[in-house]
């Protein structure tokens, strides 16, 4: 039978006396005065503090009294499993293993865990929020980098209708394209980008650049359609928000969160997708071109033309970064798209 010597502390009082804890039958505990044997407390309703290496065992009772003992070699039957954690915490081998595992797990969480968690949330974002993200982003872009298109309205309408027709022929769309917008972008140059909610923005410069290669221009549009279909924009936002929350929890600091959150709002406008997302959209574009009966090389042609227009060597990673932080290793992508 369990029998542990210790101290009984009276309810909400500094008064205490030597006592013995016994367990006459499994689950039922009795605290007796060490000298007189008077029962001070008995029952099954008790709560144990977490057991830790080197610390006494403390049992709290409903009336506010408590029993304390530094002898933790025996435990009441209900608390046997309790001791497992403190055994783990005693292990030097495990501590050494933890030193190695912790950095590895942090890296994995950052690169795999958080993105996976964030992507699973994307389908649950309300449509109203998605729509307003596009409005906000376009509004900010119009205030900073973009100007009204100088293309004739008739030309805009013709291109838009042609592309939407091609989109529908390329396959069934999981996510509808919200709008195709034309903008003059002297600073950005020849480019096109997809906003998170499904708006595609096309610069006058890229229309001008590829005016003799309509298939190449279509390939670029299909690439952006790929971003829309896979919801790369929302996934990127979700990931940066999740990073902000995790960072805030880790740092436990409200101020840093503010900065991180405010930071993501502006970086999102420069929409840089991850390399994986770009390759996924590239593949989507070449697949769709095949579906439409066009040469899959059209996308590679477009990439080459865009690179040339920005006057950088496709093999010069540093020079590329300046213009294409969103388009990593473009030489590799041209090669992929040419196959």
């Amino acid at each position, binding site marked *: 039978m369990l029998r542990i010597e210790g101290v009984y502390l009276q309810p909400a009082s*500094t008064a205490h006396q030597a006592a013995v804890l016994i367990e006459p039958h499994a689950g039922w505990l009795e605290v007796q005065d060490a000298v007189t044997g008077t029962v001070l407390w008995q029952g099954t309703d008790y709560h144990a*503090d*977490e057991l830790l*290496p080197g610390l006494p065992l403390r049992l709290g009772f409903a009336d*506010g009294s408590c029993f304390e003992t530094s002898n933790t070699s025996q435990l009441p039957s209900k608390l046997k499993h309790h001791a497992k954690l403190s055994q783990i915490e005693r*292990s030097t081998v495990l501590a050494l293993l933890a030193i190695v595992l912790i950095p590895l797990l942090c890296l994995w969480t950052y690169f795999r865990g958080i993105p996976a968690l964030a992507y699973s949330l994307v389908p649950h974002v309300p449509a109203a929020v998605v729509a307003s993200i596009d409005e906000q982003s376009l509004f900010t872009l119009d205030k900073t980098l973009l100007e009204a298109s100088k293309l004739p309205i008739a030309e805009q309408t013709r291109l838009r209708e042609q592309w939407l027709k091609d989109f529908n022929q390329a396959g069934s769309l999981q996510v509808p394209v919200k709008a195709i917008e034309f903008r003059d972008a002297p600073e950005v140059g020849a480019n096109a980008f997809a906003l998170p909610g499904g708006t595609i923005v096309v610069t006058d410069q890229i229309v001008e650049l590829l005016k003799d290669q309509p298939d190449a221009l279509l390939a670029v549009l299909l690439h952006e359609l790929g971003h829309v279909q896979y919801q790369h924009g929302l996934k990127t936002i979700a990931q940066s928000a999740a990073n902000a929350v995790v960072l805030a929890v880790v740092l436990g600091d409200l101020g840093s969160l503010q900065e991180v959150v405010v930071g993501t709002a502006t970086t999102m406008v420069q929409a840089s997708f991850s390399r994986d997302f770009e390759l996924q959209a590239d593949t989507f574009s070449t697949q769709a071109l095949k579906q439409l009966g066009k040469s899959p090389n059209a996308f590679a042609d477009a990439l080459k033309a865009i690179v040339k227009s920005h006057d950088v060597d496709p093999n010069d990673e540093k020079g590329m970064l300046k213009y294409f932080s969103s388009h990593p290793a473009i030489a590799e992508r041209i090669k992929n798209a040419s196959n």
Partner: protein
Amino acid sequence: MSEPITSVDALSAAPVQPSSTRHIVEFTGDAAEFFRIWIVNILLSIVTLGIYSAWAKVRTNQYLYSHTKIAGHAFRYLANPIQILKGRLIAVAIFALIAVLNHFNPLVSLGVSLLMLFAFPWLLLQSLRFKMRMTSYRNVRFGFHGSYGGFLKYFIGLPVLSVFTMYLLMPYALKRMDEYVYNNVSYGGRRSTLSLEAGTYYSTAFKIIGMSFAIVIAMVIAVMITAVVGSMMGEIASQVLSFIVAGAFYIGLAVISRAMWTCVIRNYTYNNLKVEQLATFESNMEVISYSKLLFTNTLLVAFTLGLAYPWALIRLQQYRASCTTVLLSEEIERLTDPLQQDSSAFAEEASDLYDVDFALT
């Protein structure tokens, strides 16, 4: 360790302390033991996506509290991990909401900043209340009795006002903050009292400002000398050396000013703090030895990429404990908390939000 007070001292302290015994606070934690607990808890927190962090907090606090002893009796941390998990989940939900709303409309962050200004006193009150309620010594709990209005006045009002006085009011504001907190702490239903003069706060602030100027001037001179000496060894060597010297001065400045404030203000506060009929305190922290401790702790943690944190923390606790003396009257032996004994009233007061930890500390 505990010796009866001399008769002369006993007489002078007679009205407050019928007969007190001196006890130096003991800290018996072991760095190697604590390291294993700490690192395993971090690992489990990561593996459980942060959920276990609530248990980790309870275990860490329990280790530190239980190894802090007065007169051979340890403190006890009573919080339940679920209470801490609730607080953290609510906080994370609010963060996530803000993060999403901010994409919805960037103006949200502006509103949030303003809201935080008014939420801060509430969070501070809440976390102090929780921390005190969850601390017990010899089975009697601490309590905190501050109010939202009080925190708004002393922790937002006065500091904001001091900005308009070119921070001249700041030391006074800090004094009022300390007084407010310590006058609202209770042990077993007995309030602690603290009454301070602003003079010590002002003289300490001015000393720190003066010393900072001196250290900055010394730093400029030292960096110039290093640059001259280093230039004989080449440009890169000169830059690296200057950087190291400037960095050492910077850490030194941060450590010494922090140590000065902590030591002087803590000693002054503790030496004036009392719990009527029950306890008075003495603190004798020294700027030089405390600076040394902080400086070596900083280097230790930095050069081990954080792995030495448990050692640094244990060293800090040991030092603080060794500098603190508590004079306890005999009443400690027969103290009961009437409110805490009435367990139904106690539970009622502890309902809902009062029992969730929104730790700011």
